């Protein structure tokens, strides 16, 4: 609260906060179990760590380690036990995927093709559209003579723009499809949960020019492979990927007395964007979550500027701007370039280190220091505990995760192992304590439905309506995962509308999307092989079979409490499945 707020108001609001928190805890207990049963399970847990058949824990683990259960998952985890399931999920490289699933992902250009090829296709489409637009403007101008340009032009122009939008749409549609199919279908669920987590941590916005072509590649090359690896590798991969270099402008950043500025009339400038977010968001943090352990990062605006100077020259292949030739076949890692002529060769003083001029290595040194800084360990531990345990995570757990991070050279897998085996994670208080983000809600509902998804478009639209468009977070801090961020009246109504549409079969996600209205011109551009689109045929009615409540309840098992089960089973059958997916139980995880 602000200091100006009258004290009476503070106490009223605080009282409401307290009572709401108490009510939320009471609810989770009342839904799932009688008090006695809950206590007996809690004591079993304390004695046993995890007992095979502990149903509440099975549900909890599937809700946090995975995006909720698919049909058969609850049964399987009951059988092998939660510890075995967790161990399996911590080693995604050892989980095999089916050839059909692999094929499903590989058929998407944004996943199969190297970043350079995607950039070529995007730039070609952009150039074609611009030229067509210019030609039409001139033509219309000539036709109109001295008279004002007539309405025909805007129509023609909008045709051109529509075609261009269509071309971009191929890329973004594929990005959505790649992400959602993996989240829904991948047997490596923890890897997908972590991919979502790290993507938000290292957010890049799809709407910023070149990033339209690159978000999926960024996720493929810089996020997913490192999601359970060493943080330093993840940090380095994001720092050097052209999607991040472009999003936070470091590709342009140029030292004041660098070679390119020496004789230039128009001086290129230092850009602090990336350097600032690198410290504030990606590593050290600002507010110092948890506040224990004394790992508060004290850095100043001067440190931001000095870091930006150290990172000058970290850019990408100039051909990505559309000039200087094709990039076909160039992978993202090879697009990263150090441009010595942009680099500031002066001495810097950063976080107390005296940095003697050392070109590209200055940036590498900065990433080394930041990755293993105690404040980074704490910042990441807090975020992981918040995402996996509770909006306000237990400080004892944050402390242990911080220590584990520092002891394992920033090994994310080991930090996650500590977290998933911790008493805090397995405590009853943590169960259903998290309110699902729209993404978690939509993905978990689709998983529970058991539908083989062939058209992700209705899911993409739902996410946008729920205020969480995929890859659509403008700001570099990414989407939050707290209840405060997502529990609002409009969101509740829209979630229930989605649940009802999905359960009654009105979202036809089980059949391919209708072919696009305009021809896809990307193929003509040459650089982008695009799947052949089937000729339009008479469309079957776009409806899928309604979901049935009883199998749905079986799939979700202990995720749905007794009260909701009672209401569902006492309701007309056409509505029952909608009630399951729209229930308060299913809103939480």
């Amino acid at each position, binding site marked *: 609260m602000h200091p*100006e707020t009258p004290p009476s108001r503070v106490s009223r609001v605080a009282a409401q906060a307290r009572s709401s928190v108490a009510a939320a805890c009471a609810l989770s207990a009342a839904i799932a179990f009688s008090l006695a049963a809950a206590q007996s399970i809690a004591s079993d847990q304390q004695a046993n760590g995890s007992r095979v058949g502990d149903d509440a824990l099975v549900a909890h683990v599937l809700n946090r380690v995975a995006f909720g259960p698919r049909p058969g998952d609850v049964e399987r985890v009951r059988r092998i036990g939660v510890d075995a399931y967790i161990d399996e999920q911590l080693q995604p490289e050892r989980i095999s995927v089916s050839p059909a699933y692999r094929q499903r992902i590989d058929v998407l250009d944004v996943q199969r093709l190297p970043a350079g090829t995607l950039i070529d296709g995007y730039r070609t489409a952009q150039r074609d559209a611009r030229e067509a637009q210019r030609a039409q403007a001139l033509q219309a101008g000539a036709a109109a003579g001295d008279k*004002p340009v007539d309405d025909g032009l805007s129509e023609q122009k909008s045709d051109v723009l529509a075609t261009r939008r269509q071309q971009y749409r191929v890329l973004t549609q594929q990005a959505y499809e790649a992400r959602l199919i993996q989240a829904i279908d991948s047997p490596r669920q923890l890897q997908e949960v972590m991919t979502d987590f790290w993507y938000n941590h290292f957010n890049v916005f799809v709407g910023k020019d070149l990033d339209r072509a690159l978000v999926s590649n960024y996720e493929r090359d810089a996020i997913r492979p490192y999601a359970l690896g060493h943080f330093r590798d993840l940090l380095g991969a994001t720092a050097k990927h052209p999607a991040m270099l472009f999003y936070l402008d470091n590709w342009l950043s140029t030292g004041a007395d660098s070679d390119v500025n020496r004789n230039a009339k128009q001086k290129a400038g230092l850009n602090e964007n990336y350097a600032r977010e690198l410290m504030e968001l990606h590593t050290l943090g600002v*507010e110092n979550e948890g506040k224990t352990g004394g790992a508060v990062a004290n850095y100043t605006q001067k440190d931001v500027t000095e870091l930006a100077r150290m990172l000058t020259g970290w850019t990408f292949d100039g051909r990505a701007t559309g000039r200087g030739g094709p990039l076909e076949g160039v992978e993202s890692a090879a697009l990263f370039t150090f441009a010595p002529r942009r680099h500031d060769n002066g001495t810097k003083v950063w976080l107390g280190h005296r940095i003697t001029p050392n070109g590209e290595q200055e940036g590498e040194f900065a990433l080394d220091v930041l990755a293993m800084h105690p404040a980074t360990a704490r910042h990441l531990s807090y975020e992981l505990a918040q995402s996996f345990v509770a909006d306000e995570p237990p400080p004892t757990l944050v402390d242990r995760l911080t220590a584990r991070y520092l002891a394992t050279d920033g090994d994310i897998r080991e930090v996650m192992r500590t977290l998933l085996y911790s008493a805090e994670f397995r405590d009853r208080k943590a169960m259903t304590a998290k309110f699902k983000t729209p993404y978690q809600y939509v993905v978990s509902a689709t998983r529970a439905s058991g539908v083989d998804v062939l058209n992700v478009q209705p899911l993409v639209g739902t996410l946008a309506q729920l205020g969480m468009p995929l890859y659509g977070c403008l700001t570099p801090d990414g989407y939050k995962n707290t209840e405060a961020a997502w529990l609002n009246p409009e969101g509740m*109504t829209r979630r229930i509308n989605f649940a009802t549409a999905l359960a009654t079969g009105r979202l036809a996600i089980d059949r391919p999307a209708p072919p696009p209205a305009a021809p896809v011109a990307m193929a003509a551009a040459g650089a982008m092989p695009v799947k052949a689109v089937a000729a339009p045929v008479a469309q079957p009615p776009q409806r899928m079979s309604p979901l049935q409540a009883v199998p749905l309840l079986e799939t979700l098992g202990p995720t749905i409490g007794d009260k909701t089960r009672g209401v569902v089973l006492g309701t007309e059958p056409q509505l029952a499945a909608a009630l399951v997916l729209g229930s*308060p139980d299913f809103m939480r995880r």
Partner: protein
Amino acid sequence: MQRRQFVRMLSVAGAGALTGLMPMGRSAWAATTPSAASASQKKMVVIFLRGAVDGLSVVAPYAEPDYARYRPTIGLPAPGKTDGLLDLDGHFGLHPALAPLMPLWTSGKLAFVHASGSPDPTRSHFDAQDYMESGTPGQKRTSDGWMNRLLGELPGRPSATRGLSVGAVLPRIYAGPVPVASMAEGQGATRPTILDQPHVADAFARLYDGSDATSRTYRESLAARREVLASLDPSAMEKEQMAANNGAPLPNGFPDDAARLARLMRNDPNVQLAFVALGGWDTHAGQGTARGQLANRLNPLGQGLAILADRLGPVFDDTVVVVMSEFGRTARENGNRGTDHGHGNAMWVLGGPVAGGKVHGRWPGIDESSLNENRDLAITTDFRDVVADVAERHLAFPAAQLAQLFPDRPVHGDTPRILRT
């Protein structure tokens, strides 16, 4: 920040719990204290023109020879000539496609703040809209929008429909912890949803009958929906107005939405803030003059604003409408009979409380030495100063909280007084 937002959100949810399932219509409003009630009658509508409208065509400085010189093919003719500007004050003229607004100008309910905008120099639509909606130019990290911060600290009691957004997606400007109601564009506003069916609502009501935050929020959403639907019911007070139109449907697009918004605001006194975004202003080529691309966009906007003013009836006396865009366009036309991304623009301000019939702000001129970077209209009024003035003097937003509404806003001595006092 996190903690503060959480607490504030709970306070809204708590207010919802007090009213429970009671419809929160006039009775709830009437129950508030008189002083809060008079403050909460004050309304603001923000219309955001995405894509950067050409402010030098909207309010054109025709009296300066540079204007015609910079724009040989797209400059608008002076007032009195064929397809000419509509004279405002002998110096500026209004785009002829905005003729429906002239009565408001004449009656002193329409003003402009010229050479205004966001001080950040970016010419990226993405960054500039982001800054104008977060209310923190140059600062990318701000996670909430200024209309949400405004909503959070307005005097009087929160209600489910206090903040309203037209369109399916919650815009950046409304991002934040305070709930915002939305009205779909076009006919979607009253399209039935599944929860409008009583048996469905009854079934879900059995699931959401608890006192937990999720259940309370769910019930609040139903109340807001009922309120919007009830207010949009054309059987109520709108019948006579429809008769006046001979039942002719309004043109599609903004005029239609403006009429619906007016009806909603008139019937639901809880609505205090509303937001509409309109696209299509990025006129790089073939911009046109009295007719053409820009005119085709301005025309429905002018019509819609005139309809909004008219249909709000007495409520217009308590309303301030602000039209803004992320930046202006270049002073000179480009090689494609269009204009490119620029800097300063004109804000439009309409409503009963507005000191209208005047082009406010310090006019920097458009001679070459006065242009920003020798290409665009300079900025002499920060858009935040205009909004802060409306917030404080019209909406009774607490002065002490202005620093939260617009953090790091530089203090100026010469903010234009756009409201009558």
